[in-house]
């Protein structure tokens, strides 16, 4: 996201309203969401550079106000770096629950407009308003209505892109930020897209951008002139076809209401890098417990377990394994995560961060379960559900694996540090 933000340039000025016929897709994006919510509670900071993020040696920027962004601060940047760029910035801690409450209010507004709401994260969503026209007016009118209601009810601003496809709508909202509204009519798509750099297209990362640059393709317009077969030869079949379609403004994805969680995960950045496999395994256990509890709380089971290992050099690898049947058990997640860690050949390598994630989620209890000989009728499943109930009553950590019980005189080997940026793996950790 950060790179895309750097590409941001002021969009077209809101002149005469563009023709919104055939543009039923809205992309609504809160402006500097975490910061905006913090400013509701700290109005005296309005107009000053504000950063939300964990303030520590390894913290990262979760969100930055537009004032801070003018200094070059952007999300996912290390806090230490942000401080150097903007020493006068006020740094506020992340308050996930507060943002979740505001987000719920915003989504309630969306759902009062149309049931076709596809949430992408706490602070952005696609809406398909094709069916709301008779009731609420044209797409651009609905977009204005949403902006008005979000401001009136939640006290924060958002930007809305209106177009005939999801990706154009999303690019439009990016272009009109902050506090903007931009309609890209179908016959204006080419004019809107073609001057943009290729990096602004969804799916073009640094590597692809370099590959395109080698072909002399820097703008979307140049890309659109390359035949499909050439792109596929240079970039591979799938990516070539994808970019060809995007460059011509084609995006067949529909707005899918309520995207279920695709994965649930947790990760930890150590205060200092760790190379002791015992400490790593204990951290994997702690993360597995956390992920297991979250899966059960959300009523999910997942079939694929993955671990993320970031070395001191920042080189990051992920390893995953698909189980024979979905699980929500910390025990299974932990054992699999340890095997993946051991199989990665990184024992004795200094690690900066470890993460555990469960993917391929299905609703719990719906999957039939193959029974095994050595599985007692009551086992880990029942034990972990009992822990859930104790936790519910007495709070987190009331019951935990013995390996995670720390004697009072023991220090924290790593200790928690910064969490990921806005909408990424943080405390909430859902994708």
């Amino acid at each position: 996201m950060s790179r895309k933000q750097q590409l941001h340039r002021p969009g077209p000025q809101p002149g005469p309203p563009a023709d919104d016929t055939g543009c039923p897709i809205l992309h609504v994006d809160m402006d500097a969401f975490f910061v905006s919510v913090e400013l509701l509670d700290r109005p005296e900071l309005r107009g000053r550079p504000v950063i939300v993020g964990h303030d520590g040696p390894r913290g990262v920027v979760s969100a930055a106000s537009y004032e801070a962004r003018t200094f070059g601060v952007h999300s996912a940047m290390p806090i230490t770096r942000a401080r150097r760029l903007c020493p006068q910035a006020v740094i506020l801690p992340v308050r996930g629950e507060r943002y979740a409450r505001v987000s719920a209010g915003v989504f309630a507004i969306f759902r009062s407009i149309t049931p076709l709401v596809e949430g992408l994260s706490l602070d952005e969503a696609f809406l398909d308003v094709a069916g709301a026209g008779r009731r609420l007016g044209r797409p651009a009118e609905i977009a204005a209505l949403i902006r008005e209601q979000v401001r009136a009810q939640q006290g924060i601003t958002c930007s809305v892109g209106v177009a005939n496809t999801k990706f154009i709508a999303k690019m439009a909202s990016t272009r009109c930020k902050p506090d903007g509204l931009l309609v890209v009519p179908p016959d204006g798509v080419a004019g809107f897209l073609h001057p943009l750099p290729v990096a602004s297209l969804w799916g073009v990362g640094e590597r692809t951008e370099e590959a395109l640059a080698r072909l002399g393709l820097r703008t979307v317009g140049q890309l659109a002139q390359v035949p499909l077969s050439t792109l596929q030869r240079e970039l591979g079949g799938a990516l070539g076809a994808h970019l060809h379609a995007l460059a011509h403004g084609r995006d067949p994805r529909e707005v899918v209401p309520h995207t279920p969680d695709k994965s649930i995960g947790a990760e930890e950045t150590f205060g200092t890098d760790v190379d002791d496999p015992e400490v790593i395994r204990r951290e994997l256990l702690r993360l597995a417990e956390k992920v297991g509890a979250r899966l059960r709380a959300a009523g999910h089971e997942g079939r694929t377990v993955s671990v993320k290992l970031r070395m001191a050099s920042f080189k990051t690898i992920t390893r995953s394994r698909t189980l024979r049947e979905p699980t929500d058990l910390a025990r299974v997640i932990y054992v699999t995560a340890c095997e993946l860690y051991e199989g990665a050949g990184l024992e004795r390598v200094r690690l900066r961060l470890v993460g555990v994630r469960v993917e391929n989620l299905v609703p719990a209890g719906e999957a039939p379960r193959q029974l095994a000989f050595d599985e007692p009728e009551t086992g880990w499943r029942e034990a972990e559900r009992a822990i859930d109930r104790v936790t519910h009553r007495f709070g987190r950590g009331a019951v935990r694996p013995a390996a995670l019980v720390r004697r009072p005189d023991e220090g924290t080997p790593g200790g928690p540090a910064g969490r990921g940026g806005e909408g990424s793996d943080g405390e909430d950790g859902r994708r």
Partner: protein
Amino acid sequence: MEYATDGRKVKVEFRVDRQPLAEAVAWAARTLPARPALPVLAGMLIEATDDGGLTLAGFDYEVSARARTDAQVADPGRVLVPGRLLAEIVRNLPPQPVDVFTKGSEVVVRCGPAEFGLLTLPVEDYPTLPEPPSRAGTVPGDVFAAAVAQVVPAAGRDDTLPMLTGVRIDIEGDTMWLACTDRYRIAARELTWTPADASFTAGVVVPARTLADTAKAIRPDADVAIDLTGTGDTLIGVSGGGRSMTSRLLDEQYINYRSRLTGTWTSTARVRTAPFVEAIKRAALVTDRGTPIRLSFTAGEVRLRAASGDSARADESLAADLTGEDIDIAFGPQYLLDGLAGVDTEYARLECAGPTKAALLTAVPDDEDSPMDDTGFRYLVMPVRLTS
């Protein structure tokens, strides 16, 4: 270079018929590793002796394979050649006598108009092939092959529990038991064999893939000899019909499976094997990964049902005899098919003790006067718990 650095002769010359050569080479090539730990392990050892014997061998440190056939030996000796390539070449030769001889650093393979030259590998670097332990006894090749084929589908494929990737072989006197389990089912076979010593006992675990390949490749009309000492074995030898192999054994620890194979059952169903297999295969067409087939036995029939979500379903009934309580139980279709593949009689028998308890699949002997309850094959399978 007639002699290697170890003083052994590396020159060789012999003539052999194409068919026996092809079979022998194919046997020895089975163990050749795809990515050899040492370059010489990609080689096939060719050894011709004065008495007209030709031996071909391959080895990957775990498993060795040797095949012996007759040849007209003009010049005895031993050479090492690229094994996979030799196997490919011999398989494609025309049906004529094959001349093999060394020429400089090359082994020439000549068959009719076709001639190939293969650069030899340094035979003096080749490891010594393991010698099998002493002969423990013999069993008819077809019986052994059938028994191994009945149990190996139940072996685990996951290396996290190496023990489960093996076939457990237990021997007590003239009785041999073979068994595999992957924690979800146990396939076991009891058979009678001829031990060299009537009081011989052994309990070993052999890698299942290796044993399956070996049992399949030995000629069914030959007797299979098993080489084991019975105590502290680390190696097993299996041979028959001029073919032999040795395999390293897995750790001898194994679960006590035999106690699980007897139980008290609340219902017993009898169903014709072939139509049952056909019906399961049909119903399995609509199952996803992880979704089971549900079997409902009532007096006179079994109903098979399967579905993948709401998108497809299957429903079929066929005749079955039931004694005891009605059964409503679900299994992974492949687990049922693996078990039924081991039932080689007209009727299969399924014994159950409840929808979440293991069920036992056996074969009803075709001979009604048979004193035996089954054919020595027992397949215990855990059901799938359905969500209510």
